[in-house]
């Protein structure tokens, strides 16, 4: 098989394994949907004091989409790659003629496809349940933010595996990093409710910039659809992740 055909081959089996794994289906697919339903129902009818006041449900569509995309990419990759590494599956794969990058490419493809599905799913729920329509004229900007964000958070997820020593530590480390950032970046609690300075702190990390870029693309009120500065910062984080991943990613188990 050619390189690209091999990636497709690998991707097919990664998809099977993803959908059969109850942990990935729950945390990556169900959790963002449940969170969106809860937040949408609780804050339905309220306004958020951003850009002159918008519906809370409108605020939460790009917020939960950002979370879902980060979960499908960074979180899923960091956890499944560590599990595969510690199981010896990465090492075993390296003993075959398959070029090692094919394995990573299959996983990244899996993450990006799931991220895209989550975007569609959340857009449909937002439209049907809360009347938040997809701003079709801004679709190119939304997809651009998705692609830049998904690629960057994939790189960060692969880089993060180097800091995770064992399967048991994977969920703890990933959640300890991401959950506080979701809070501080205004993903769970609308940013007008957060104390001053919190957003400025969150701006040091890529989650806030990704949410911002997604927000600009999704919410019609406001400035240009493409938030180049935010996307550039997210992309820089992605490049940094890629450099670290190339330098520190390991194929053999840490334990044993």
């Amino acid at each position: 098989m050619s390189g690209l055909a091999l990636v497709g081959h690998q991707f097919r089996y990664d998809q099977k394994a993803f959908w059969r794994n109850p942990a990935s289906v729950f945390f990556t697919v169900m959790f963002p949907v449940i969170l969106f339903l809860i937040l949408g129902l609780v804050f339905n009818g309220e306004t958020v004091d951003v850009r002159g006041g918008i519906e809370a449900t409108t605020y939460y569509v790009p917020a939960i989409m950002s979370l879902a995309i980060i979960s499908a990419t960074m979180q899923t990759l960091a956890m499944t790659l560590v599990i595969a590494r510690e199981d010896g599956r990465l090492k075993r794969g390296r003993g075959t003629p398959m070029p090692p990058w094919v394995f990573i490419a299959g996983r990244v493809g899996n993450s990006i496809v799931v991220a895209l599905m989550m975007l569609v799913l959340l857009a449909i729920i937002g439209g049907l349940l809360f009347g938040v329509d997809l701003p079709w004229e801004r679709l190119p900007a939304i997809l651009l933010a998705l692609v830049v964000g998904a690629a960057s958070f994939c790189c960060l997820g692969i880089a993060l595996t180097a800091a995770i020593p064992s399967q048991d530590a994977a969920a703890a480390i990933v959640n300890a990093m991401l959950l506080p950032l979701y809070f501080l970046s205004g993903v769970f609690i609308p940013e007008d409710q957060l104390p001053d300075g919190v957003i400025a702190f969150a701006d040091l990390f890529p989650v806030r910039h990704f949410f911002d870029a997604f927000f600009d693309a999704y919410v019609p009120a406001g400035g240009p659809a493409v938030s180049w500065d935010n996307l550039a910062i997210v992309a820089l984080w992605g490049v940094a992740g890629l450099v670290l991943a190339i330098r520190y990613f390991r194929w053999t188990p840490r334990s044993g």
Partner: protein
Amino acid sequence: MVESPFLSDPVISIKGLRKSYGETEAVRGIDLEVNRGEVFAFLGPNGAGKTTTVEILEGYRKRSGGEVTVLGEDPERAGREWREQIGIVLQSGRLDPYLTVRESLDLYAGYFRNPRPTGDVIALIGLEGKADERASRLSGGQQRRLDVGMALVGDPELLFLDEPTTGFDPSARRQAWDVIAGLRDLGKTVFLTTHYMDEAQRLADRVTIIAAGEIVARGTPEDLGERASGETTIRYRADGREVVLRTQTPVQTLHELTANALAQGEALEGLEVTRPSLEDVYLELTASTEPAE
């Protein structure tokens, strides 16, 4: 295909192989050759340097010194073509729990240019009844057979099996042995590491014993048996004390002993004549050495 020019060429050739981890020397200058089509057992206690050696042969580790040729190439520099011809079963590998037997094999088949049909491999490893079962629902022995199947699916010339039955119950071991014994009939060359004497005896054409990074014995299982017959132990009790005699010439010693006893009217209570088993040879060769890994 990377064909060696002569069929009689060894599939694996090692000269003066050394490997150090910092101050520790795990492998201290070993030589060995493995011929085409044989099942070769590399036997030794835990920490003797078996896995270090096999991982150097597989291209996973760099050596500190010596020469290594596997299928005509240096594993440190060998590429994709070389990997088409080897199959690897790691010592402690877990399979993807969410893929079925058939899917796991199909996934690996896709990595090779000329894979063996998946159905054939399933039959070889005796998992016909479990083909559509997920790996997580297989027993330990069945998972190991699937593991071997994934190494066979590329139809390799040479197969590495690193302690394939460690931690198995007797029936799972026997199942795994049947699969490995079947590989010889396929004409595969098998490099097997194990710390079980009976496993080497049962499966291998030739056995090499390593202890503390050095080779301490080599030969066919029968050769090593010959070595075992070198000294016979004779025990009996006289005046309530145990007497132990070791001899290279048991027939003569026994004859003298019993003739004397008859003449003196002694009973030779509890008379026992034993020849050490292969297990004893192995234990004797490996007991005095300290683990190096």
